[in-house]
């Protein structure tokens, strides 16, 4: 079935290092991919998105890369900070289905000071 999934459930990095979180998807018809950050006890928070016709998009300290050939998405966080510790989800937004989000399992990022 259609799904959006992640390669690794946990990632531990040193403060100041760069982090890379990966995601695989299976729906070739996806329009948008979105990364969310979820801290304990909170709802998901939008970080950055990318249209399916792009291969790279940059934000503040974050970069999303999309490889449609292998159906792979990644989130790069530069100079990771303790405040970046959270669970990160990739999600696909389906505009032809009311804009609902299809989420993957998530990767827990832990930043060591």
């Amino acid at each position, binding site marked *: 079935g259609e799904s959006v999934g992640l390669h690794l459930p946990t990632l531990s990095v040193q403060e100041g290092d760069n982090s890379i979180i990966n995601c695989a998807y299976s729906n070739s018809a996806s329009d948008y991919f979105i990364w969310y950050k979820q801290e304990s006890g909170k*709802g*998901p928070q939008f970080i950055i998105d990318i249209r399916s016709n792009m291969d790279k998009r940059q934000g503040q300290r974050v970069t999303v890369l999309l490889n449609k050939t292998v159906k792979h998405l990644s989130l790069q966080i530069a100079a990771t900070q303790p405040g970046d510790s959270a669970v990160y989800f990739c*999600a696909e937004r389906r505009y032809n289905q009311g*804009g*609902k*989000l*299809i989420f993957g*399992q*998530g990767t827990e990022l832990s930043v060591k000071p």
Partner: protein
Amino acid sequence: GAGVSQTPSNKVTEKGKYVELRCDPISGHTALYWYRQSLGQGPEFLIYFQGTGAADDSGLPNDRFFAVRPEGSVSTLKIQRTERGDSAVYLCASSLMGPGDREAFFGQGTRLTVV
């Protein structure tokens, strides 16, 4: 408030009881979504409202689950005859127009525990 508000934050109920979970979306947002998140998993879509009407309820697991949005603002998710498997965090999200919006804003969720 400026964000999506969900009440209560936590709800503990006995198996077989009825519960209602409330969502106050961002003012002016016409699209409202309910999701359910089990421990260690990503949120799963339940239902989508455009205005007062349920445009897509394909994610509701069975007929014990029902949601309303009578005035196109506040929404209530209702669960009848609760089961232990219903225990999860129930998230609500809203967006300005609907499918074409880039961003949906989530509330903090209601943690439902069925004992």
